[in-house]
């Protein structure tokens, strides 16, 4: 039996998102077209299909026919679960962007350093307040009063949720996974669906007023 095929199927059925950061072997396997088709056919017999994010960074399992009423209800329920925790994650994205080395929103494959983030947060009261908000949210639920404890709890929670994997041997570096790609796509959909104005549109509205 093809071991990688079995591993890939198992990961997908365990609802894991497969990317080059979280599982390079499985990702490489699925990136080859005929192997992707093989897994897709196998999953198809169970009513699933292998989906991929637009930026090609992430594979995940989706329903073959999501229009069935019970699946649609389940998907809506899943959606509510995700959006329940969206606010602290959005705050985290902004915090990581302002405190991180690149100054850009976290992207798959990027390495974040807990030490660097902490150094920046400790020197900025605004960043510290954002961290307090995130750590005290239901999503992280940290009891720590120290920035280090709060940051650690937040990163651990994000690791649990599959957004980061530990990188290197120091225990203070983490690699962003492809789940961020999926989240950005989800947020883009929500933005369109809920008609949330972005910077330019907001400015235009202000000018009109």
């Amino acid at each position, binding site marked *: 039996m093809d071991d990688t095929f079995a591993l890939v199927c198992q990961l997908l*059925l*365990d*609802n894991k998102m497969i990317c080059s950061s979280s599982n390079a072997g499985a990702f490489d396997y699925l990136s080859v077209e005929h192997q992707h088709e093989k897994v897709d056919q196998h999953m198809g017999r169970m009513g*699933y299909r292998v*989906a991929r994010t637009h930026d090609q960074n992430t594979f*995940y*399992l*989706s*329903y073959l026919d*999501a*229009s069935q009423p019970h699946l*649609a*209800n*389940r*998907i*809506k*329920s*899943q*959606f*509510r*679960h995700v*959006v*329940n925790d*969206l*606010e602290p994650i*959005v*705050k985290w*994205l*902004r915090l990581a*962007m302002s405190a991180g*080395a*690149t*100054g*850009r*929103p976290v*992207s798959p494959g990027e390495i974040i350093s807990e030490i660097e983030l902490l150094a920046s947060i400790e020197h900025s009261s605004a960043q510290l307040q954002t961290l307090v908000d995130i750590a005290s949210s239901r999503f992280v639920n940290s009891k720590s009063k120290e920035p280090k404890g709060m940051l650690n709890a937040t990163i651990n929670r994000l690791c649990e949720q599959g957004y980061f994997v530990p990188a290197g041997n120091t225990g203070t570096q983490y690699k962003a996974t492809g789940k961020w790609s*999926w989240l*950005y*796509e*989800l*947020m*883009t*959909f*929500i*933005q369109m*669906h*809920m008609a*949330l*104005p*972005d*910077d*330019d549109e*907001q400015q235009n509205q202000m000018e009109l007023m």
Partner: protein
Amino acid sequence: MSAEHDAQAAISALYNHRQTIVRAHINDRGTIPDSEDTNAAITALKSHRLVWFHPEDEAAQLNGFLSQLLDHTLRNFRRQMASEIISGILENLQNHLVVDYLEAKKRCLQQDQERLKTEITGCIYDLIDRLIQSVTVFAQYLSSGFTYVSDLELRMRENQRVIRMGEKLNDVIKEFDMEELDHLAGNDEDLRRLLSRTLPRYIERAQTELVNTLHQLTALLNSTREGAKRSRLIGAFERAYANDKGFEPSIDGLVNIPRILNWVQNQTVLPWVNSGDASAELVLAGYCQGLVKAPKTDDEPEGTPVTIEDATELPSLELRPDPIVSAADDLIQCVLIDGLKTTASKSLIASEIDCPMSLWMGVLMNCIHSLSSEKRGRLKVTFIEENDFLYPDNYSVYDIVIGPNL
């Protein structure tokens, strides 16, 4: 007479339609736009075979020879525009030093010859040095990631500016005509060594590095552009949450589920033992060893009774262990010690206890909560749940998956 006439007519055609031709070469990559104004130019050039027609859209395209001629005339202009210092050194080298050196050599002016040779050598090494420096500067820009510019829009502008500078330098490097340098060196051994071997080698190396750096700078620009887009997206959500404290995205009214929402979650697949599989017999036998129970007798209750001594000096009570709690404890021990992974429903069937599922799940959770935090941490508990149809904030738990927390 005919050949002379044809050539003159071709040059006249070029002169008469010079504006159209030059515009096409500089602005439209050699394509002459099809319009009433350009019809005469296209017809005249076609009669001298100075244009060809693209097979897909029939657009008139300047002939290769004509493009080469125009390229040649624009070469000096490009050099000056691209990088004046390098261009100036090259100009000095090609048009003065080498020419003077060959003249001095021809006239056997030994002293001038030596001086010019030293100058040419210095000039070439200066050129090489500047080329290396210029390429290094772009590599430094790349390694900085332009993080010295904090605003992403301004960072993109800076990145674009550097790419344009790099492209200009690349234009200059491309303008180095190796054949011309080789021709200039003639038969002079020293000049050949410098102009035909050393300089071309460095030019080639610099160009390879520069092109590679430019590709990476372009990739960085795309990535920053993506970052800026995502930053705007994050900003839109920040504003939504700031403006409306109860903001919660909803898709309740959606009829068709879009691709991005279609993902599978909480569909844990649990393997179940195939007792008919002979190859698994040995493994199963090992698992079953610890599960053998003594037959129950009605007069001998299971478990050791616990005596409760009451400080109020009332008669002491004897509590018999609850079989449901005992079964739940046993199950948790199996998970902790043997690494068993199972569900509440399957374990309830296996334990043969007469107890409703809801009570069994409650007892299981109570037993788990009563464990020490170290033991609790070794367990992974997943609820199989769904939102209530009428009250979506409530969850109906159908089953519990219990296993070791690996």
